[in-house]
């Protein structure tokens, strides 16, 4: 019995060593795949955000141009000749000296000293730090699942 066990052990020892090496290599591969998957997920998220950012920048530029056009139009619509015409259409007339009455209010001094409230002491504008490792892992996981769901839906991320 002792001899059989010894023979069995001697026969199986190399294979056990091989299995340990394979297990280590498999573990390493698994870790590498996990890291690769996380890297790919992060890269995809970055690429998606990059495209979205490009689109937003283009949209912003277009909106700024549109705003400038609108401001120009507003300025043209508020030009003095147009306002005068509009006022005349509405029945307004130029006010002359005879139409204006200045009132002197007894005891009122327009140049009186006014008490102005003091501004509050400025506080440092530093955002509160609330990041944690668990939160970061949760963010990665959410991004990963979001990518997976968007790919499986076949639509744009």
């Amino acid at each position, binding site marked *: 019995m002792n001899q059989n066990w010894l023979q069995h052990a001697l026969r199986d020892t190399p294979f056990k060593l*091989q299995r340990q090496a*394979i297990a280590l*290599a498999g573990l390493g591969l698994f870790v590498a795949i996990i890291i690769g998957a996380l890297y790919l997920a992060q890269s995809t998220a*970055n690429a998606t955000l990059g495209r979205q950012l490009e689109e937003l920048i283009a949209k912003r530029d277009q909106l700024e*141009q549109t705003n400038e056009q609108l401001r*120009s139009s507003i*300025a*043209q619509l508020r030009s003095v000749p147009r306002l005068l015409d509009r006022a005349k259409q509405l029945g307004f007339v130029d006010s002359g000296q005879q139409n204006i009455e200045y009132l002197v209010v007894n005891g009122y001094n*327009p140049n009186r000293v006014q008490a102005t409230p003091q501004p509050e002491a400025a506080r440092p504008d530093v955002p509160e730090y609330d990041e944690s490792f668990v939160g970061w892992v949760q963010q990665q996981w959410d991004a990963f699942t979001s990518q997976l769901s968007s790919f499986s839906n076949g639509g744009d991320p």
Partner: protein
Amino acid sequence: MTAQQGQTQIDTFNSRLPIVVIGMVMISALLVLKLFSFQQLSLDVINELSPDYNRNINLAAARGIIYDREGQRLAVNTLEYRIGISPNLVSNPQRTATQLAAILNLDELETYQALSSDQSYVLLAPRVSAEIGQQVEALELDNVIRIEKIPRRVYPQGTLAAQILGFVGGDLQGYYGVEGKFQDQLAGRAREEVVSNIPFEVTDQQEADKGNDLYLTLDRDIQFLVESQLQQSITETGATGGTIIVMNPRSGDILGMASWPSFDPNDYSASRERDWRNPAVSEQYEPGSIMKVLTIAAGLDSGKISKDWTYNDQGSIDVGGIKIENWDRRAHGVVDTQGILVQSLNVGAATVSLSMGPIDFFKYMSKFNVGRLTGVNLEGEATGTMYILGDPDYSDSSLGTDAFGQGLATTPLQMITAISAIANDGLMMQPNIVQKIVTSDGEVPSQPTALGRPITADTAHLVRDMMVVVVRDGLDSDAQLPGYTVAGKTGTAEIPTPVGYRSDAWIMSFIGFLPADDPQVIVLIKLDEPTTGRWASQVVAPIFRRLAERLVVLMEIPPDDVRLALAAQGGDVNGVQR
């Protein structure tokens, strides 16, 4: 299957399994390594494989906006589009021609013929509005259509303040006015930037350095009033041109400045080049009797004459071989200092300058900045001309003629700047057109700058009181404004030619400020060759009154009685100024 055979298969499986696993591990490792090398190690290879990895973009800087003192936009930026197409890339010319012709308002058949050619580029519309350009963009003809955005400067108030603003040419450079003077500030800085096409590397820094915004001291409403009054005056008097300047004598801020002829900065090429200049700062003229105000001020301040000083006016005086006569060619007998201004006597002014002597007289004129740049921040300012003792062109008669504003030349802005010293207690402020400059770092307000103090406050008050009498009791009574104390003086100047002075045309002007005891506004009106009268007191003084009637409403300047009542209880006129 026997137990021995089964054991043999298991042994075989066990012996091959490591080989398979090792193979898979190696293949996976190779894949991971290759992936890593693609991501990190082979950027140069990727660049070679894809030349479009980076692209150059030109970031045009937006030109700064120009506002009036109340924030009303006087100059803004818009975009226009140039639409072109590559016919050789158009797959469906008929449909494309139909779409483009409808949007661009083109003939559909001609558009179709253009698109049916095999040319690489055809210009469809050289300049269309941004609205139409965006409609073309929306067609998504990305591969065939070529849309270029062309920045354009627009002046939404039309011709308002055209000579102050100047314009921006097709080369995007500012010319004349503040556009030219502040080109460097307004233009900003365009940049060319290399941008990656890889979406990982998007940056938000794709902006050029925008130009600074300018806030002018102009008040749009006052500017419109000044321009409309000038236009009306020229029409009524048959003048060939003219200038009106409205300024705050306390600060030197120019509130309104108009000259005619003018131009439309939105269509500057349709007007003559000489109309682009601003005559208020670049045109010299002989100011005439307005100059007597400075002569009297100089005489009083130097101590050569006093308020009670008198002389015997015999109707003419000989200075340096030139016979100087009064405007009415009459002798006025014994006249005091105030009488010289009230009756606008050339002989009296010449007598004062002679009593001062050339050194003192021209020293004071130089202190009043006559014949010198004011340094206003507008392009094209002229220096004026005044020959002083020692100049090659100086003649002895200059001392006499300069005293009543003939034989020397100033710009309208120089003249109003000099007289503003009388209004501002003897302190002469530098005229200023820019209230503040807004940069990306904040606002840079302009500070009032004094050019000097040519006379004392007491002298200024004396001369001011005489100018009040000129309007109240003198020749210029048509400039009176009921309820307000106005100080002023007219000038009717002969126009020089290479062979002498014209006898058929004059430059008529009026300068006045109000309220006289606490001036808030000073106005210069100048008309070239009006035909409805012989003297400025007849032609220009009533125009001042009409303009001042509206100015006091726009500037909310109360009548004297209200002002005095306010002052009696601790306020002053500034308390009711907007």
